[in-house]
């Protein structure tokens, strides 16, 4: 190998981009060419995964302590600002590109089955490929601007795919909501970038991070402002309080999209950003505490809402918000490896859950379609007893449910336990972390409960789909179940990536990420083994309690179909209505903005000031001037002649004199 390291890194994002171009062209020219579209759409992802794996292997051989940067061209040479279009690969990016291309490839395969009968098949794959391209740009970018391009690009693709079936108003609205809410977060990201450039004079990761400690000092107001603005960006993209509201609505998109973008990859970009900027967050105790606190609060808050949702995808959406909260609790605590570990395992089991729900919805939808019924194919009250008809989906989703609940030895147990352990250990130095840990533990209880509720209502008890529809319920085709099986295996074995020393493991992921996190690591206190065992026992106990509690408290047999269901009351209604947060935002933000726009900006500024004073005013002024001039035009020849003579005399007089 004569090539310098990572010469071919550009191939990884270029492949999905090529897929986008080809599929985009096919969408315009030959939307019916489904075979070609599937081949290109899925093929580029598989190839990209292979390319990513090769690049990571190369990285593993070198295992450098600094990121490998490959510059391609000068992008923004403006005065003091020198930004090259450069990609970088380090241990963190390596994990991310493997997750993005690996889980992405599985979801592409699933999509080929799920979307097969959709008229927008080619457009769908074009968007999906474009998303993967931008996501890879985001995680491979070697500077803030390049990362920002990916950051905005995934937001765009998210918007396009949420509103994929844009002929229905509700879907288009959901897309708009996601985009607008994300803009608020992006604004924070931009402000943080400007501050970083203002104080360090650079936007390259390789320049900014080594300089950060000397430029800002620990705990200064500037670094706190930067980290808080960065985190505002994270709350938008990664759906944390207060900007989480778009993610549940994003479930209007096709289910594989929810799995890829709104569970496994894009929404984890904020977690990635915090880890990437660990050098900055480590300098700001306020910033880190905010990240951890918001994460813990979101984890608990979203879990309460998930308790009372009936739409199967909405339960998973709030579950995603809650699990992202865990990741932020981890990275805010300084346990970066734990956060990334949970990100990875979450990508496995949440993608599995979403694809499983997609398989359920697919079956429900086909059953209702066959009998021309107009029932809600996503409402769990219309399901029940599906385990009999879809044994594969049910089994695999049970595995994922146990994983997300934190039952050992599945993947979710290790990652969640590690985050909670780190938070508890941090409490020794800063007691507020005990509160965060308590919230995380409470959220774990709720997680186990609502996930078991979802499984019970969907797959067990009496079937409520309808007598005629029941015969039409079938397991999904192998094209869709195969990715589920692979994800199931990953869910079972994913924990092996990072088994902590407590269980005799080598904490391999933590060691792998050490070069990235070493510069950034906030002082994390170590707990004694006895404490750790106690924490593990508490976590497992809580998870078991949640599952058993759901089995004891819930009675799927008595549930009525959605059409006949009684209205919710009391606390249940409060949770079902999502704590009325949407209504609150509507009252304090949306309506005032609309009022201001309509009553002031439109009716006063636009109609009176711009249209009235400026546009019509100019017209009126020139008309008045024209009226004065037109008085000379009497139309009588005599007047003209008098003026003419007077003019000639004046000219002659002037010349002669």
């Amino acid at each position: 190998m004569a090539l310098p390291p990572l010469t071919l890194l550009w191939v990884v994002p270029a492949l999905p981009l090529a897929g986008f171009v080809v599929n985009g062209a096919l969408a315009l020219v030959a939307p019916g060419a489904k075979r070609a579209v599937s081949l290109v759409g899925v093929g580029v992802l598989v190839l990209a995964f292979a390319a990513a794996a090769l690049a990571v292997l190369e990285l593993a051989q070198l295992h450098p302590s600094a990121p490998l940067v490959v510059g391609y061209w000068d992008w923004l040479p403006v005065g003091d600002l020198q930004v090259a279009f450069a990609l970088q690969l380090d241990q963190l990016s390596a994990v991310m590109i493997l997750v993005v291309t690996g889980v992405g490839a599985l979801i592409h395969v699933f999509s080929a089955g799920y979307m097969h009968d959709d008229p927008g098949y080619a457009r769908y794959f074009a968007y999906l490929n474009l998303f993967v391209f931008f996501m890879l740009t985001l995680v491979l970018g070697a500077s803030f601007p390049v990362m920002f391009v990916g950051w905005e690009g995934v937001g765009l693709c998210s918007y396009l795919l949420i509103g994929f079936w844009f002929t229905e108003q509700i879907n288009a609205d959901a897309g708009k909501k996601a985009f607008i809410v994300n803009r608020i977060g992006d604004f924070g990201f931009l402000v943080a970038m400007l501050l970083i450039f203002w104080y360090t004079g650079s936007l390259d990761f390789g320049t900014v991070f080594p300089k950060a400690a000397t430029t800002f000092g620990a705990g200064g107001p500037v670094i706190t402002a930067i980290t808080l603005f960065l985190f505002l960006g994270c709350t938008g993209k990664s759906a944390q309080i207060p900007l989480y509201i778009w993610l549940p609505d994003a479930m209007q998109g096709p289910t594989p999209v929810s799995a890829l973008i709104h569970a496994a990859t894009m929404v984890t970009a904020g977690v990635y950003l915090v880890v990437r900027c660990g050098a900055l967050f480590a300098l700001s105790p306020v910033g880190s505490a905010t990240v951890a606190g918001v994460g813990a609060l979101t984890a608990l808050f979203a879990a309460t809402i998930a308790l009372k949702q009936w739409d199967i995808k909405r339960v998973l959406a709030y579950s995603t918000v809650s699990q992202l909260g865990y990741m932020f609790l981890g990275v805010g605590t300084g346990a970066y490896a734990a956060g990334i570990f949970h990100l990875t395992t979450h990508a496995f089991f949440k993608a599995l859950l979403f694809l499983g729900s997609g398989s359920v919805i697919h079956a429900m939808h086909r059953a209702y379609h066959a009998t021309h019924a107009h029932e809600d194919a996503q409402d769990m009250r219309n399901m029940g007893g599906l385990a009999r008809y879809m044994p594969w989906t049910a089994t695999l989703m049970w595995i994922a449910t146990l994983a997300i609940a934190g039952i050992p030895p599945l993947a979710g147990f290790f990652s969640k336990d590690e985050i909670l352990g780190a938070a508890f250990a941090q409490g020794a130095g800063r007691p507020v972390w005990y509160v965060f840990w308590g919230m995380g533990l409470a959220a774990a209880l709720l997680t186990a409960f609502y996930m078991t509720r979802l499984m019970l209502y969907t797959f067990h008890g009496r079937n409520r789909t309808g007598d005629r529809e029941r015969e039409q319920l079938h397991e999904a085709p192998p094209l869709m179940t195969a990715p589920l099986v692979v994800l199931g295996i990953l869910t079972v074995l994913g924990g092996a990536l990072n088994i902590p020393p407590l269980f005799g493991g080598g904490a391999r992921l933590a060691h792998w990420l050490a070069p990235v996190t070493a510069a950034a690591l906030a002082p994390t206190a170590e707990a004694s083994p006895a404490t750790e065992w106690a924490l593990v026992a508490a976590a497992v106990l809580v998870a078991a309690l949640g599952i058993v509690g759901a089995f004891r408290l819930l009675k799927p047999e008595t549930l009525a179909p959605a059409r006949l269901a009684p209205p919710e009351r009391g606390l249940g209604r409060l949770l079902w209505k999502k704590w009325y947060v949407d209504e609150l935002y509507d009252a304090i933000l949306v309506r005032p903005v609309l009022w201001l726009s309509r009553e002031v900006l439109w009716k006063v500024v636009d109609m009176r000031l711009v249209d009235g004073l400026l546009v019509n005013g100019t017209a009126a002024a020139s008309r008045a001037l024209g009226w004065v001039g037109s008085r000379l035009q009497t139309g009588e020849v005599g007047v003209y002649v008098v003026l003419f003579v007077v003019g000639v005399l004046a000219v002659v007089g002037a010349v002669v004199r």
Partner: protein
Amino acid sequence: MLLGPALAVSGVLFAVGVLGVLLRRNAIVIFMCVELMLNAANLAFVAFAQQLGVAGQIFVFFVMAVAAAEAAVGLAIILAVYRHRRTVDLQNINLLKG
């Protein structure tokens, strides 16, 4: 010789023409006054030609040719206006009023 008196007559003729154009309302009379002004100019040309060479006399021929052409066109216009409006009083012809 006789330059001074000739120019005086020319000036008087021109002034009469101008006043006629300014004060009269009948289009035909105004037209005749315009001819008067042209001929006043012709007289001045001839008078100067005696001292400054033959060019002035040649100009007079041009002016007369132009005046003849103008008379043809101008009278035709007046006739057309009369047929249209049944009057040649310029006070009644003011369609171009602004």
